[in-house]
């Protein structure tokens, strides 16, 4: 029998372009992209995400992006909060410190995918993790690549290591 409780794990998906990508992507990129996805994992009553400052957390739906566009249920986990925080701290010190943020290769969705697998064994939907490669496959994406690489998304929340 499970001694530990089951904690539900959800994936919050935000469209950072607020619908503009859906409209403008055929025009600008030549292919249809339904959104510029930012994701966060919600577990233990908090939302966790990886941004330019590192791993941050906030109350669910508490970033300036507001409420998520969609929520995916990833199942549940036995991992209790303290263990999870240790895991996150460890991640934040290594692969997910602030300076490791890269808009294409190592972004919020990479983080969400990894944490989702840790917590539940499930990956996040592939249309999200495939987004960077889709953009880079277009000439526009290639042209803007140096610029986009310099973008670091900082939608707020608090860094879990306490640093800013």
């Amino acid at each position: 029998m499970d001694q530990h409780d089951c904690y539900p794990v959800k994936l919050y998906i935000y469209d950072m372009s607020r619908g503009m990508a859906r409209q403008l992507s055929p025009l600008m990129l030549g292919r249809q992209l339904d959104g510029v996805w930012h994701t966060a994992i919600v577990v233990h009553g908090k939302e966790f995400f990886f941004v330019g400052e590192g791993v941050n957390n906030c109350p669910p739906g508490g970033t300036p992006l507001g409420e998520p566009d969609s929520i995916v249920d990833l199942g549940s986990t036995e991992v209790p909060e303290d263990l999870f925080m240790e895991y996150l701290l460890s991640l934040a010190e290594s692969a997910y410190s602030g300076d490791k943020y890269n808009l294409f290769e190592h972004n919020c969705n990479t983080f969400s995918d990894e944490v989702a697998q840790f917590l539940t064994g499930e990956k996040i939907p592939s249309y999200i993790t495939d987004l960077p490669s889709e953009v880079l496959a277009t000439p526009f994406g290639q042209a803007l690549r140096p610029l986009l690489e310099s973008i670091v998304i900082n939608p707020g929340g608090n860094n879990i290591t306490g640093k800013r």
Partner: protein
Amino acid sequence: MTRKLTPDPSCSIGGIKMADQGAADPGNNNNNKPEASDGTIIKVTVKTPKDKEEIAIAEDASVTQFKEEISRRFKAKQDQLVLIFAGKILKDGDSLSQHGIKDGLTVHLVIKTAHKAGDGGSTSASSSTSTQAGNTSTSSPAGFGDLSGLAGLGMGSANFMELQQQMQRQLMSNPEMLSQIMENPLVQNMMSNPDLMRQMIMANPQMQQLMERNPEISHMLNNPELMRQTMELARNPAMMQEMMRNQDRALSNLESIPGGYNALRRMYTDIQEPMFSAAREQFGNNPFSALGGNSESGAQPSRTENREPLPNPWGPPNSSSPAEGGGAPTGSTSTTGGTNPSVSNPLGVNPGSLGNGMFNSPGMQSLMQQISENPQLMQNMLSAPYMRSMMQSLSQNPELASQVLMNNPLFAGNPQLQDQFRSQLPVFLQQAQTPEVRFQSQLDQLTAMGFINREANLQALIATGGDINAAIERLLGSQPS
């Protein structure tokens, strides 16, 4: 101690323990390699946040055995290891196969560090929240440190930015809230302190940008008298209307200056009317009556003072006015730090910053919101005829266009991207318009010259990229006459 790496037929699983060569293990079968032939060996990847190793283990091994192997590889004590697979924590008594761990799969490992496990483990959650409360995320103004007062308003977050965010959201969805907030004596106290208000407003990065571009605003903010006046006004809607009327009266005096009436009229129909109607329509109806040229309703009675109260774009008192200068800390839709809107001073800002202000008005904001919720609207909007002139002016004035786009949260806080976009904007805007739109004036000219075949004109213009003379050459060359 040496470990045996090959199965030793003299040992068996669960059976008699034979002494390993040089090993001194306590009494269980410590070899992870199955000596007997029942279990196959599987390779399982063990992943920590920092590291990852592939470990070969018997398919039917127990979690304990697995942990022993892991503790060797990762140089950690067994009781520090926590294994997680498919969301479940692997307990020592379980077996790997019970959890479905097969060859090639990944198991997650967390190595509890001793001191962290004690105080950091269970209290890390609470300590991180206390640091949240301690260092607020943005440079919050000094006087705002005690948030417990506002928590009484129903927003209990300890973080300034979240508070701001939540307030904004709630305000946008519930206008009565604003009036409630205004009535709260704490808020009123706060607002009567101009320094505090100024600090709060200046803490907003968008406001800072706005101020950089428009030094008049910073002057305004720095004038305590003005700030106080503004805050009085924000609190007291009757007084605000009074002020508006005063300014309207002043404006109507302008009419007596030759040419003044036309200037006023132009100002009104081009700028203010769309804004007013947009704000009025905010709660539901057709957003496009806002941008359209409702020139009928815009016709002012000539030469007489307009005695009717002009529509208050901010609706009934205190409703839906999230962007009032000095109002509740909303931040991002700040049209102004100070003066009131009226006909004479449409956006409450110095006319120098007029262009920017327009797109920050609450009406426009809600329009943008509606558009983003219904992308079809955007298509329609782009192809509508009255948009054409706006787009043209936008494309001729990249500064203006850039300011429109800057409000998008995607760009906020990233000056590099803004610069890039600014330079690319003319290109972008060209593309966003159809050729017909772009060449409208040239088309008109051609038609006036006698080239009545619009299609051919358009083709020629497209081919020559808008060059009228070259287009004429083309047309003449292709025409039989």
